């Protein structure tokens, strides 16, 4: 296996243009190196990009733009600010310190695991991906980017360079909740992210709900979001939201948990998440106390 050494993003794009699907970009290596040793992937050329400093920055002018090489450790420390706590919470659960120190946001996105922790919170923040090739660049919504289990719309000559997030809003709160068998270094049995924006009368004006480990790709549940928008939070409404989430998901039995168990988790996660979002938005919540 060859290594193509690059020192700029442009050189990396040239390498990808030259070798196409035979090339594998290599950032922190926490997924790629394991897949190589298991022979799950067999590229001819590795293109290490870990030292491309221009892809490691966070810009917070109005909206937020996160470089693809920003690490989970940086995100977990709250580098995006208080409006993006779900992303910090998710990054904090990706493996242990050793994984978070080198694992990158772009890697988590492009690996496209059904259980990827950062993807539900990115979905609730309407993440837009900037994909660049030597021929130009394009922007694609994360939802559209994710095609199937470990499948994305990244063309072989494209590199994910940054992720744009919707600007924070007043009276908004977000959260990522994860269920695993242990509290650290665990692949999610179910992961749920929620973001709620409230108006002055404590009515939900905008809702986003996304889950991991309940389908082939992490996904947003629009039917559930629509139920919340224009309403005040209450227990009955959240039962309907949970039913909508369950209707849109297709969990499977695997070695971590049964599909039945995953389904049983959803209502409690929905209620807890709504309560935390309300509290973080500074809105009174009728649902949080009983479920915290």
């Amino acid at each position: 296996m060859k290594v193509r050494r690059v020192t700029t993003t442009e050189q990396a794009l040239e390498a990808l243009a030259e070798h196409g699907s035979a090339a594998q970009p290599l950032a922190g290596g926490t997924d790629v190196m394991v897949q190589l040793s298991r022979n799950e992937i067999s590229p001819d050329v590795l293109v290490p990009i870990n030292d491309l400093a221009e892809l490691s920055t966070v810009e917070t002018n109005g909206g937020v733009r996160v470089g693809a090489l920003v690490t989970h450790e940086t995100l977990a420390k709250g580098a995006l600010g208080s409006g993006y706590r779900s992303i910090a919470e998710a990054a904090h659960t990706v493996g242990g310190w050793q994984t978070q120190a080198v694992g990158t946001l772009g890697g988590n996105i492009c690996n496209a695991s059904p259980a990827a922790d950062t993807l539900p919170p990115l979905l609730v923040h309407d993440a837009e991906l900037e994909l660049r090739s030597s021929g130009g660049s394009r922007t694609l919504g994360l939802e559209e980017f994710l095609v199937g289990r470990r499948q994305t719309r990244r063309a072989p000559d494209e590199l994910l360079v940054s992720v744009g997030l919707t600007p924070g809003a007043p009276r908004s709160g977000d959260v990522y909740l994860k269920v695993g068998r242990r509290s650290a270094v665990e692949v999610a049995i179910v992961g749920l992210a929620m973001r709620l924006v409230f108006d002055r009368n404590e009515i939900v004006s905008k809702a986003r709900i996304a889950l991991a480990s309940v389908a082939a790709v992490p996904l947003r549940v629009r039917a559930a979001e629509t139920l919340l928008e224009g309403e005040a939070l209450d227990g009955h409404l959240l039962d309907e939201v949970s039913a909508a989430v369950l209707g849109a998901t297709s969990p499977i039995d695997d070695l971590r948990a049964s599909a039945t168990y995953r389904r049983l988790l959803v209502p409690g996660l929905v209620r807890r998440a709504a309560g935390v979002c309300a509290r973080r938005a500074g809105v009174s919540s009728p649902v949080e106390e009983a479920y915290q």
Partner: protein
Amino acid sequence: MSSGISFAVNGRGVTAQIDGAATLLDVIRNDLGLTGTKEGCTEGECGACTVLIDGKPVHSCIYPAVSVDGHSVVTIEGISDGETGRAVQEAFWDAGGIQCGFCTPGFIVTVAALLENNPAPSEDEVRIALAGNICRCTGYSQILDAVEVVVSGKERA
């Protein structure tokens, strides 16, 4: 096809010729003969292979060797030479934080990195920092005791 890399190991400049997909662990143990770093799961789960890259703990068993070119690596051998590392090692010994010893180099490296960043961590912070290191012997209590000994600066009763 081999590729040349040069980097610092425990403060000393080294060069190596590596195969494309070689791991940092391969280079440390096989090329440099530093066998204090252990190979456990080879999948980045157990933490036995932990080394520091630019001061941050990393699973060397799944870290690409090519990516340390131009960087600084510290292994358990280098940690042992430092004041913090020595204190951590002695505390593990005193508190019974070592049984079979296989996970110990990884734990010592991670604890030393934690204490370099945060000399007075809470127990929660210690537990979070050590989440990526697995020990099948001690049940972790004695390891937490050992870190407490170092943090408090007190001898264990």
